[in-house]
């Protein structure tokens, strides 16, 4: 009953919070950010698109992104002088002949001059394997790609660019000469990253293919965009907002109800940032728990606050996954970021069960600390996040539910086992309550078997999926090997316990499970080979090394400090 009561209270709290957000969003006047576009085969709002495509390129706050984007497509001269590109690498600046600034921010014009000077080098770098390049070369190439993307945005809207500061656009010129040709055919070779014009229920069109200027709906669309461009350049805020609202309503009419609901959810999701919220709430929970440990006489009051804040954090994380599930219409574990938030949810739910079951019998400091670390990783990965369509081989809900979710739960359980082993290891030397330690040992043992079951069946289901899709059960792909590594490690730890009755080495083995899991989960992505091509990266190596060092140090310090106690217990 108490749990049901708690859940009702917390759901009410979260619902109120969400409704408050919806209310605030309803009064959000920036209609330009809400315009629906087609990108990567999916309808989304401009704001979501900019969050995933422009936020990591420019040093701009999320809220200012739509305005900066409007400058790129409608008023490029102003944009090109803004110092928005962050360059820290001094070698790169040296190559670009750019003077160092205090805030490390440089304008588009500065960078273009630098790139022109190095165009021969860039052409050579483009032909080389990206992962063989050094850090400066990689950054140069990244900057080149970013500038290309910005230029692509600009040229995609070439119709609405101003003609030599006259105030007239290319579109005005075409309309003035409309009698000469009923079709406008532009031969520019532009890669259309997104589509913003929808003239009927089915088709999205771009400005670079043949435009039928007799089509009244199309002309209506283009007129409004032209109006938007002019009002933006004139800095006429009232007319700009009116034009944006008008265009938003026009596009919405062409969308199905299903798409309209989905883009509303996605817009809400991109604005609220549930992962960030959950992160802050977990920090609060952690701090409350620390107070609980320090001020034991206030335990009763802090306990309730801690309990509720932890529940709220979990609920926000679950909401996050649930909203992604609704938006994407598929199981929400298809890329590295989604797997991180899913593992976080499973981890926090396991921790909650653990708290409810044992009522603070054991110290929670280490598990909560690790929860913060995991949430922090999710928070960092959130910036490049984008809900993407699945490729044909992944486009199967059955296998995504069975294999991916099972193995992700397996990873989460392995992590919780490893972190509880940290606590057990700590208890082994600090607590003299043998009965308490025995119970803890049994919990660990039980959880290890459960983790092994999930990870082993996740791996087997992956094999069955591969057998169904490619005709091979096992292919020695790095990700498969990673999963096998975790399985074999857990089997090894369990057998070590059978052979050597000393539980110290069992717990040491379990502590190192977290390193193995992170190697399998993130480490193999550094190899950049294999079929599981999601989340390829080359930046995580140092962090993994630091983490492994930290784990070794933890075990080493406790073993050295309390080496006499090891023999005392046995």
């Amino acid at each position, binding site marked *: 009953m108490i749990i049901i009561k708690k859940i009702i209270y917390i759901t009410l709290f979260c619902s109120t919070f969400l409704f408050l957000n919806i209310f605030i969003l309803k009064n959000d006047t920036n209609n330009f950010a809400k315009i629906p576009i087609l990108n990567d085969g999916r309808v989304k709002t401009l704001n979501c698109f900019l969050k995933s495509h422009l936020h990591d390129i420019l040093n701009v706050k999320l809220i200012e992104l739509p305005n900066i984007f409007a400058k790129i497509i409608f008023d490029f001269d102003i944009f090109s002088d803004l110092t928005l590109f962050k360059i820290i690498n001094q070698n790169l600046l040296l190559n670009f002949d750019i003077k160092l600034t205090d805030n490390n921010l440089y304008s588009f014009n500065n960078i273009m001059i630098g790139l022109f000077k190095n165009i021969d080098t860039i052409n050579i770098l483009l032909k080389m394997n990206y992962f063989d390049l050094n850090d400066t070369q990689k950054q140069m190439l990244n900057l080149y790609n970013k500038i290309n993307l910005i230029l692509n945005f600009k040229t995609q809207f070439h119709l609405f660019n101003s003609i030599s500061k006259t105030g007239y656009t290319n579109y005005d010129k075409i309309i003035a000469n409309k009698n000469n040709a009923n079709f406008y055919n532009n031969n520019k070779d532009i890669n259309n990253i997104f589509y913003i014009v929808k003239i009927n229920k089915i088709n999205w069109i771009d400005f670079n293919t043949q435009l039928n200027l007799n089509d009244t709906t199309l002309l209506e669309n283009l007129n409004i965009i032209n109006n938007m461009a002019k009002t933006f350049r004139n800095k006429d805020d009232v007319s700009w907002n009116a034009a944006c609202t008008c265009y938003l309503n026009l596009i919405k009419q062409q969308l199905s109800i299903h798409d309209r609901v989905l883009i509303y959810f996605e817009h809400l999701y991109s604005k609220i940032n549930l992962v960030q919220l959950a992160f802050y709430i977990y920090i609060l929970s952690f701090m409350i728990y620390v107070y609980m440990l320090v001020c034991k006489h206030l335990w009763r009051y802090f306990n309730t606050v801690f309990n509720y804040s932890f529940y709220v954090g979990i609920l926000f994380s679950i909401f996050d996954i649930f909203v992604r599930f609704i938006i994407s219409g598929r199981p929400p574990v298809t890329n590295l970021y989604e797997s991180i938030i899913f593992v976080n949810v499973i981890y926090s739910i396991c921790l909650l069960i653990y708290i409810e079951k044992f009522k603070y019998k054991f110290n929670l400091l280490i598990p909560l600390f690790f929860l913060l670390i995991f949430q922090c990783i999710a928070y960092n990965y959130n910036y490049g996040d984008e809900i993407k369509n699945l490729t044909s081989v992944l486009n199967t809900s059955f296998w995504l539910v069975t294999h991916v979710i099972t193995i992700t739960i397996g990873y989460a359980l392995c992590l919780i086992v490893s972190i509880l082993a940290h606590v057990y290891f700590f208890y082994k030397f600090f607590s003299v309550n043998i009965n308490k330690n025995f119970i803890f040992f049994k919990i660990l043992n039980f959880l290890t078997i459960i983790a092994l079951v999930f990870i*082993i069946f996740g791996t087997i289901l992956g094999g069955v999926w591969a057998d169904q*899709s490619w005709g091979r059960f096992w292919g020695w792909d790095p990700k498969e090997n990673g999963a096998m*590594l975790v399985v074999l490690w857990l089997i090894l730890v369990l057998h070590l316990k059978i052979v050597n009755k000393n539980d110290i080495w069992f717990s040491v083995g379990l502590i190192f499970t977290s390193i193995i899991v992170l190697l399998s989960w993130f480490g*193999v992505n550094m190899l950049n080979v294999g079929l599981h091509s999601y989340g390829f990266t080359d930046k995580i190596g140092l962090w993994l090394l630091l983490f492994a060092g930290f784990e070794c140090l933890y075990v080493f310090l406790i073993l050295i400090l309390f080496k006499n106690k090891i023999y005392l217990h046995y």
Partner: protein
Amino acid sequence: MLIFYSNLIALCLFDIKGYRLTHRLVYNIYIYKYSIFIWSILILITKLFYNCLIFISRSEIFIISLILFLITLIIGTISQKYIGIQSVKDIYFNSNVFYIYNIIPLPGGKLLFIIIFFNLLFKLILNKIKINTILIHVSILLLLIGSYLEYKFSETGYLILDKNIIINNFVNENNYSITINYNNKILNTNIIKNNVLNKTVIAINDINNNKITLIKFFKNINMNISQNNLKKTQFNKNLFYDIKEISCFVEHEHVKTGILCIINNENFFILEGLTYIINNENIQYSIILTKTKDIMPFTIKLLEFERDVYQKTDTAKSYTSTILITSNDLKNWKFNIKMNNPLKYKQFIFYQSSFIKNDQNVYSSILNVKKNSFSFVFYFASIVMFLGFMLNIYIFFNHYRKKI
């Protein structure tokens, strides 16, 4: 128990000897002593054999094998970045021994699997273990047996289906054949099975009893024009190359597969897919090395290929091939093959793999083919393992529920 059986065997042997001797009414003390000696040796051998089995079934052996396998797995996985998955499979996982920096020997995956297999097998036979552990161990044995059967007997390949073209064979990925064409007579010989040379000489009786001696098969090579005339290998007329074996990236487009052989006392390197004209005493014949085409007992015809893409992108949602199968027992039956939805027919399984688009924007479908699949062993092993684990959890939970 085993000692008892060995005693019994030795006693039987002694008795038989004694029986024969009494019937002949000759009693020889030396033979008696000789029998005692055999008996002792037999007991010793049996005991030694039994101890060996006990030793192999020890948990320590399993743990050491597991640690070694973990090391092999880590090295093999990291090596994939540099030499590709196919080479890693051959060097680390399908081998008995591999060397680090060509100096330190380490056991390969194959050897370790054999050790783990016998360790688990003897543990099951010789030790008293609980039913849940038996089930889990049996399932792992089944997985290993399944892997062996799959490795030994399964054939994999692919099939490129052009629209409305009838086809009755598939290209075997791991087998190669040499085709010799002389006076329009075609001699086709399968020389490589599972990437291993299984024939050393091809006799061509029609051409004055000529022969081709096969020396070595190279999955991928690097060819440089030879500077040293002594180490020459003829590749084409008047062109001599140094051949060096290199790692084979399956995903790499330029894989040069070939075979080194001796024709007319000259070294020849035959590259896959190229036709070589050989002149010998005014007799001319051609040689070509190709992947083996395995015949299927039915024909396949591609009726339609559909590629469903996401709006305004090239990203495919799904591929579907509609095919028509014709065989003796099944006349003109239509099937749809999709990604994640293969077709099983007789001992063949067809998987939708990819597609090719030609200059006229016409699509050809590529299907992966597998002959003699032993996947059912894996599925059965998985079910046994699941039962074992569930039983394990149930026993564990029941046993410790009160204490926790």
